[in-house]
């Protein structure tokens, strides 16, 4: 099995607090991996460590066979931050093209990702005039630039209406089908069923890893939410 991200006893301290506690996990490549847990569990920090924005305190974190944060990884990883990190005073196209240039790409690739998130009709529009859902799609488009091998999406569906959420998950499924590894964090447990494999985390610790079905069978529950609650109960 191919591994996209491998964590060994990964710990991260931030401002005197331990955010991740000795997390060990091998994340398979080419699948949609859900990083699930309540807010404050350490999901964002884990994702920031994977994309190389967060220094790790101890342990090892390997991404696409290289240590996280390696310069050679820039361009291989698409990163979508929790809030749509885009320039509100630029048009959709200007935003995409700027980030494309940073990755050494041109207009063709920019048009490609705009089409992938279905924003062709809005490409001349200023981002600040877009709806919240459209903004997150611009943000996703930037993450898709350069056909990254790994996509790290931090709560991409938070505050998004059900129709758009459906749309986004369809896009994710398409991308995963083309061989890209996707790590997507969420605190909405019912999104778990859309992932191939789940990592349940709480208080910076990995509670369990497995497919939604495995997790339900292992804990003898019907839903991922149920198994999460059972695992928390066992732990305390």
């Amino acid at each position: 099995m191919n591994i996209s991200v491998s964590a060994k006893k990964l710990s991260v301290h931030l401002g005197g607090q331990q955010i991740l506690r000795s997390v060990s996990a091998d994340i398979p490549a080419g699948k949609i991996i859900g990083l699930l847990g309540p807010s404050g569990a350490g999901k964002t920090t884990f994702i920031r460590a994977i994309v190389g924005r967060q220094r790790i305190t101890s342990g090892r974190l390997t991404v696409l066979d290289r240590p996280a944060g390696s310069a050679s990884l820039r361009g291989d990883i698409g990163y979508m931050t929790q809030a749509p990190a885009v320039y509100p005073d630029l048009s959709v196209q200007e935003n995409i093209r700027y980030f494309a240039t940073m990755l050494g790409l041109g207009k063709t690739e920019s048009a490609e990702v705009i089409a992938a998130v279905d924003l062709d009709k809005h490409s001349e529009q200023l981002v600040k005039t877009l709806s919240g859902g459209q903004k997150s799609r611009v943000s996703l488009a930037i993450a898709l630039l350069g056909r990254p091998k790994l996509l790290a999406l931090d709560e991409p569906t938070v505050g998004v209406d059900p129709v758009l959420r459906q749309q986004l998950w369809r896009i994710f499924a398409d991308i995963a089908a083309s061989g890209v590894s996707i790590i997507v964090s969420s605190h909405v447990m019912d999104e778990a069923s859309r992932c191939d494999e789940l990592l349940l985390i709480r208080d910076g610790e990995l509670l369990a890893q497995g497919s939604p079905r495995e997790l339900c069978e292992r804990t003898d529950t019907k839903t991922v939410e149920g198994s999460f609650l059972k695992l928390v109960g066992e732990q305390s």
Partner: protein
Amino acid sequence: MSPRRTLATSGRVLRQLRHDKRTLALIFLLPCVLLVLVKYIFQSEQALFNSFAPMVLGIFPLIIMFLVTSIATLRERTLGTLDRLMVTPISKLDFVLGYALAFSLLALVQACLASFVVIELLDVPVLAGVLPMLVGAVLAAFLGTAFGLFTSAFASSEFQAVQFLPAFIFPQLLVCGLFVPREQMAKGLQWFADVMPMSYSVDAMKQIASHSYWTGALTRDLMVVVAFALGVLVLGSITIRRQD
């Protein structure tokens, strides 16, 4: 470092401002309006105004670009766009130079307008002519941008960022020789003024106004300004971290 990424960053910054017409109008017109105002404050003292106006041209670009840059880079941090850029191959120098270039270009336009007002409309004699004056103004703006980039790293909110203006710029403004000739100030303040870059920006403008040729002192003043700006720019790029 890559010239393409630097230029793309400048282009992006300018494009953002192009969509923000009011900010552009303020950058371009404010110095002109204020200069006219000062002219009438000094209406019975033309000689005083003549020595004052060129110095103002070495100060305005610095202050305005300081403010605009510190807010712009603070926004990059809070919006998360800097986070995003730092996972791309852009180098930190590309980022800061991109900003410096964009705002220096704006400063050039600003300086053209202000020089026109000073020389043509307000009849201030500038012996060295308009070209050295533009050079001086653009370098002052470059310095302001560098300071803005650097100090914005220490601001966690816009409230703090705007107050760095009185904190970092006002002391320099008070001792730069605009209000009282530096030789007349207390000794300690003279030393302080000697290590503050704005003093050199103001001295350069004085040289430009009072000599019909490019003086050695002017070269020295401008070189100090550039050296300061580059130094602060490098410090600014160090404050941007790839990893938190």
